[in-house]
């Protein structure tokens, strides 16, 4: 197995605060890996470093064995990295279809002048793109009925799904999902979990996700990495993590010494 994403001794500080302290992890091709941890553990900071919005103080990031530590977010996108956001970052004024097409922006070859000169080619490209989006994304994510609706008018669960659709249109190798089922009801959560599993099974897309819903995390992940106060405290299969003392402590606090009978 090859690590598609490798994070090596990553540190990030905000002023004097260590948001991340020497985090290392490897995400193997074709797996679903979850990052969990209490609030403020540094999960989203780690995502922001991987997608290029924060610059780490130390450490390096490799995508497909290529050092991307210094690459800009657009560069990382063109190398096959896509992500969704905790607070949904869709283009609110546009329709669902326009949002999804924007995901494919990096793959359109014809530029401004070329699309003027080679009208036919640009149109063929557009038609091919449309078919791909219809078949592989809209049908797959079951959002056919809302394709022409402005995204701002959609309920939260569907907006999350559109965001995933847009990430898929980038034809990524690796998708980062920041809390993909947060705020969803049972049914929406199950749908989303099924989509994530299908993405891996049917398309071999590697997935790294941050999630608080432990049922989902334990059900769909192959590996779980646990952060607390910017440090990695545990990693392994869901079962290993579930049994780890350090994880129980991080979530529930330290066991008090048994005081009964000492008085």
């Amino acid at each position, binding site marked *: 197995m090859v690590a598609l994403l490798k994070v090596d001794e990553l540190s990030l500080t905000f002023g004097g605060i260590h948001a991340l302290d020497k985090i290392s992890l490897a995400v193997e091709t074709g797996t679903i890996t979850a990052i969990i941890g209490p609030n403020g553990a540094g999960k989203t900071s780690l995502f922001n470093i991987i*997608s*290029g*919005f924060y610059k780490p103080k130390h450490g390096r990031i490799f995508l497909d064995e290529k050092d991307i530590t210094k690459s*800009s*977010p*657009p560069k990382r*996108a*063109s190398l096959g990295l*896509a*992500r969704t*956001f905790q607070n949904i*970052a*869709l*283009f*609110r*004024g*546009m329709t669902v279809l326009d949002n999804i097409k*924007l*995901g494919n*922006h*990096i793959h*359109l070859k*014809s*530029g*401004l002048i070329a*699309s003027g000169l080679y009208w036919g080619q640009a149109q063929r490209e557009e038609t091919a793109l449309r078919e791909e989006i219809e078949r592989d994304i809209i049908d797959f994510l079951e959002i056919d009925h809302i394709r022409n609706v402005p995204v701002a008018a959609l309920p939260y669960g569907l907006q999350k799904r559109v965001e995933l659709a*847009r990430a898929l249109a*980038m034809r990524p190798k690796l998708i980062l999902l920041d809390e993909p089922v947060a705020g969803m009801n049972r049914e929406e959560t199950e749908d989303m979990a099924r989509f994530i599993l299908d993405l891996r099974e049917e398309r071999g897309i590697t997935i790294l996700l941050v999630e608080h819903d432990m049922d989902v995390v334990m059900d769909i992940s192959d590996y779980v990495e646990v952060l607390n106060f910017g440090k990695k405290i545990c990693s392994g299969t869901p079962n290993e993590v579930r049994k780890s003392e350090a994880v129980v402590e991080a979530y529930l606090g330290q066991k008090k010494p048994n005081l009964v009978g000492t008085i």
Partner: protein
Amino acid sequence: MEFLLEVSLVGLAIGGVYALIAVGYSLVYRTTRVVNFAHGNMMMFGAYFFFTFAALLELHWSISIILTLLCAAFFGAGIERLLIRPMLGRPAISIVMVTVGLASILHGGAQMIWSAEDFFMPQIFPDAPLVFDGMYIPSNTAYGFLVAVSAIIILVLVFRFTRSGIAMRATAGDQIAASTMGINVPSMFSLTWIYASLTSALAGIVVGSITTLNPSMGIIGLSVLAVVILGGLDSIFGAILAGLIVGWIEAVTGFYIGAAFKDVVPFIVLLGILILRPYGLFGTPEIERL
């Protein structure tokens, strides 16, 4: 009321030119959240570029326009790269102050380069006024309107249908998301300033032809800023509509009430509308969650 139609036509024609200037403001505001107080003076520089090529160097007007647009493109890109981009991430008010400073520099610069005298633009439009059904519209105003409308149409088409236009809209919508989609956000900022500078240069040529050319013509930019606020700072469509409305009100009050009121009444209307709609006619209400 027999002149109402004629006065209205002239007003709407001037309004079209306002709209072209206004579009430059809202382009920059939408994408970079900067209110560019130097926009009027960038327009004035555009007019002087044209004057230099067409009158001082005596080039043909079509070549002069192409050269002016080229200069304006570099001018806009240069301002963005050298003055605005280093300020990214600073408070909005600091960036606005940079544009205010730039406005003074351009004003003074134009006086130093071209002197403070009034010049007449070389005549590019035909002399004869346009006549519709017995109503006269001065030639410069009528053709200026046509130039403005064509420029706006081209701009809207670029925004709707080209890859870079769509990338610019995406950048205006959400910079973080755009950047994740593989859009190079800083280069979209440059492109925005280039487009704004191109529209301002065209507007400068038109305004210079309708009035005269002097370093203070940038002042018109400030009245147009009021137009932009009326339309809603971040709405291109609002800027166009508001331009037409203000042009019409100015012409009608100037004719029926008196020239002295021409500059006042549009602002009174502006105040009235802003009391009812604080975000302008088509602006996006900002909702802040606490």
